[in-house]
């Protein structure tokens, strides 16, 4: 093939689009059309059907579930423009990305940045193929917002560590194969005594207990480590570098919580339209309950300005080649507004909107109730709203610590 110094980008993109379309036609099973990805959620896996396995393997083999990750580790090695084409074509075909979960959203990007060559070769390819589920070992009973207060201790035993302690709020811990954890390797220094290591969930001494939440689901677990042996090869970065690496990973988490398409799709239907189904309308076709109508409009205006802010943050980041200073407010705003929406949805539906179970409620009504309850976690995890306020005040606004 002749080498082109200035490739015709548009022709290349068109060719790639055709390639994606052909791939979908050849590999995407009809029966999975408009289904979600079981691996991406924290609600736990559904049993993989043969069609699902085949689809995961087909996408994983090409690295197209992680399209921009380097090819040598199993990623697609594609440009952002090509990744967008994959998104668009998958969406058009009603195909989900079968490669997901915390490995893709949080751990992979962090390991690519901080991991050794051996670690990347070992851990990234199975993530790209969707073979391994990762969970996050961060919070502890006494280390929530004050995360650096964590006490789980890894004792140096020469070629390995012995880990003892307890993690909590381990999302999907009961289904995970491996855990990326921050643990204490030095008790004398709060922040520099923390290291980032990888722990096998089936190693002897690891015990997982699901926690039942107010929503009735158990997406989180308590994870206990009782003399768990972790080889030194599983230390990421240097000993004592765990706080730096761990915080970097949290940035990926925040991006996923706030800007996520999940939030946007959740907000798809106009509350006004829902309210018209559940309540009376007047002669003008307007909601007869004017107080409720006012509340809904008030909410939707602010929701719109949040979406515009998310879009502006992306545009500014692109133009500046760095993170926009308003990115820091997105998690705080997005989580608060989605909670508000859930509350409004209940007000619109009345007691019909508070069903716990039963055929008298639609699936949509029941899901909204569980979503309302589980949604209370969004302003707590990933750095609570109060922590976000500290970050905005100190880092963005330059307000000082108490002297």
């Amino acid at each position: 093939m002749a080498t082109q110094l200035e490739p015709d980008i548009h022709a290349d993109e068109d060719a790639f689009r055709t390639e994606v379309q052909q791939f979908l036609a050849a590999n995407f099973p009809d029966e999975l059309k408009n289904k979600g990805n079981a691996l991406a959620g924290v609600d736990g896996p559904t049993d993989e059907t043969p069609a699902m396995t085949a689809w995961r393997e087909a996408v994983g083999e090409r690295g197209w579930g992680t399209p921009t990750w380097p090819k040598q580790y199993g990623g697609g090695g594609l440009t952002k423009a090509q990744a967008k084409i994959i998104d668009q074509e998958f969406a058009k075909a009603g195909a989900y990305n079968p490669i997901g979960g915390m490995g893709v959203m949080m751990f992979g990007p962090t390991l690519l940045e901080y991991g050794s060559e051996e670690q990347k070769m070992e851990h990234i390819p199975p993530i790209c193929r969707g073979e391994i589920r990762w969970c996050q070992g961060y919070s502890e009973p006494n280390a929530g917002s004050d995360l650096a207060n964590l006490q789980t201790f890894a004792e140096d035993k020469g070629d390995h560590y012995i880990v003892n302690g307890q993690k909590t709020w381990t999302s999907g811990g009961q289904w995970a194969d491996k855990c990326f954890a921050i643990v204490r390797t030095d008790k004398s220094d709060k922040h520099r005594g923390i290291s980032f290591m990888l722990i096998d969930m089936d190693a002897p001494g690891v015990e997982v207990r699901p926690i039942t939440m107010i929503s009735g689901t158990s997406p989180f677990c308590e994870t206990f480590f009782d003399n768990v042996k972790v080889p030194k090869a599983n230390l990421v970065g240097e000993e004592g570098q765990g706080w730096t690496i761990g915080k970097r990973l949290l940035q990926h988490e925040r991006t996923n919580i706030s800007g996520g398409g999940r939030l946007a799709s959740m907000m798809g239907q106009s509350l006004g339209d829902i309210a018209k189904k559940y309540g009376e309308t007047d002669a003008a076709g307007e909601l007869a309950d004017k107080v409720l109508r006012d509340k809904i409009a008030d909410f939707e205006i602010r929701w719109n300005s949040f979406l515009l802010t998310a879009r502006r943050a992306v545009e500014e980041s692109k133009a500046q080649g760095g993170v926009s200073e308003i990115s820091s407010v997105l998690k705080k705003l997005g989580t608060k507004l989605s909670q508000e929406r859930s509350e409004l949805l209940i007000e619109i539906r009345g007691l019909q909107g508070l069903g716990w179970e039963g055929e008298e409620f639609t699936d949509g009504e029941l899901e909204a109730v569980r979503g309302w309850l589980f949604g209370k976690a969004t302003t707590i995890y990933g750095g609570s709203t109060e922590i976000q306020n500290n970050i905005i005040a100190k880092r963005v606004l330059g307000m000082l610590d108490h002297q």
Partner: protein
Amino acid sequence: MAVLNEEQEMLRDMARDWATNESPVTEFRKVRASGEPHAYNTDAYATMAEMGWAGVIIPEEHGGSDFGFLSAGLVVEELGKTLTASPLVATTIAASAIVLGGSDEQKAKWLPKLASGETVATLAIDEGAHHDPSAIETSVSGGKLTGKKAFVHEAHGADLFVVAAKDGLYLVEKGDGVSLTTRKLTDQRSHADMNFDGAAAEKLEGGGDSLLDDVLDRARVLTAAEMLGMAQQVFDTTLDYLKQRVQFNQVLATFQALQHRMADLFADLAQMRSAVEAGLQAVDGGFGVAHAATIAKAEANRVLHTISNQGIQLHGGIGMTDEYDVGFYLKRARVLESAWGSSSYLKDRYAKLASY
């Protein structure tokens, strides 16, 4: 801040430099002290027009630069920061009515004069203390317009009025059959109740059925841009103050209660800026204008209301003094919140647009 092109950046920087150096709040104090009913410095407005600011949305063939509403909003935002008193916003909105609805003759007659600053113009729509374009009694018969208009902005300095009558918008020149009564509001700017008694009127025949709404949406986004400048300034000034003021041997900025309040206001301001800029851009793009303008003004109302109140509270006692500027922003804020739609009006309009 929206991503700007080079022309827009130059325009904004020029406006920022001029407002900061030539038109700080001390200039507004001079205008207030002068007691003149038109309530702006005519030399300053002539300079603004010379810099091209009165013609930003006027087509080049009629003496403007046709940069559009986002550009006009950048200038207005900077002027809002220093509370620069001028008929720029009123004239720009009136010009947009002529651009949208004027005949070729009307455009050729008025737009060059509006762009050059020779003529000052303003909108006269509402007939009561609340914005309500559905309740217009003013009527026209045989080219003579009769009716009353309430709280018309920049009325004292205006040579030309764009007046809403039952059947559309009309151009009315200052003169026979046009009289005004000063209504002094908290912002110390020009406002008047107007009486049109058989005044000669020329209809804006173009622009279709939605002309009035389209003009009002332009008024909403440009007013919101002025409010954005004000909110930004109050926020910045308040933050500076918190970093300097010492109580309990600590600068106030170290207190977490105040840090979190400022973080909330920062998030509000981010939403306001996004909404206002999107409103201006929607006018330029010509798509979804009513929706975007409603959101822009509603968010401007909500956030400036909060920030102007918090500006006083966070300054403490000194914020209550006339000597300190922050009170001026509060007093102008409420006037602009009421202009072209209060929060309740805009929420109703949003719901109507969304068919609920």
